[in-house]
């Protein structure tokens, strides 16, 4: 729970600072690249952890099939529920 609050706080603080114009223009211009850089570093670390873990390496094929099943079900579920909401709550033409 504490990590949830921390993540939310970081998002809000960052959003507030930039919305109010407190972020230095040079940082603002670089923000896309900074996000990308963070992402790459994090992905690298994650890849390293995966490589260190023998259990995962051997389970790769099975994980792949499970991943596809999860994604198909989540996408189907999302479309279905949104469709139901649209039908219930939209009077005007779709």
């Amino acid at each position, binding site marked *: 729970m504490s*990590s*949830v609050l921390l*993540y*939310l706080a*970081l*998002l809000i*603080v*960052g*959003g*507030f*600072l*930039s*919305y109010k114009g407190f*972020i230095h223009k040079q*940082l*603002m211009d670089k*923000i*896309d690249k*900074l*996000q990308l850089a*963070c*992402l790459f*570093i*994090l992905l690298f*670390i*994650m*890849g*390293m*952890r*995966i*490589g*260190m*873990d*023998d*259990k*995962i390496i051997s*389970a790769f094929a099975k994980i*792949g099939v*499970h*991943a*596809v*099943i*999860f*994604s*198909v*079900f*989540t*996408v*189907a*579920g*999302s*479309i*279905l*529920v*949104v469709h139901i*909401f*649209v039908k219930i*709550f*939209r009077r005007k033409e*779709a």
Partner: protein
Amino acid sequence: MVFFVPEQYYDVTDVLLMIGLCLLLFFVGIDIGKNKNVFQDIKKTGILFFLVPIGIVIGSLIGAIVGGYLLGYPINESGAIGSGLGWYTLSAIIIAPYSAELSVLAFLSNVVREILAIALIPLVAKYIGYVQAIAPSGATAMDTTLPIVSKNTNSETAILSFSTGLILSILVPILVPLFI
């Protein structure tokens, strides 16, 4: 990799992940706050502004839990994967300290979700409805899949896609930790 990095360093990666993650979320917040018109654009969409993201969350969770049940996963793990909502990097990063295996699974399934979204958005827009075409993307509806939604629907739906992706992006770091 196990040849170059001794296994004792595994715990250090937990701390590194946490620091990197905090930085990333801070930058994401800055990026979102950059758009001065963000509040006006949002008012135009009506009640669907809330219903579409809520619907995607409910649908993703139900879908993930049902699929996970069939595969034998505990509900909390299925829920964690489902609440990634297509954001494959963040969900995997948050799950990594809990279980490296689940983290990889979350990563892969959300990557596949994004691929499915790219393929399905035009079809859903054409055969089911414009608003429903936002559903496959999830959190990516505000950036990577936004151009695809925009091209296959109209500008009203594109704004809704952006706001939906925005809300969902904020929800991912809230929902995923709740399940693990």
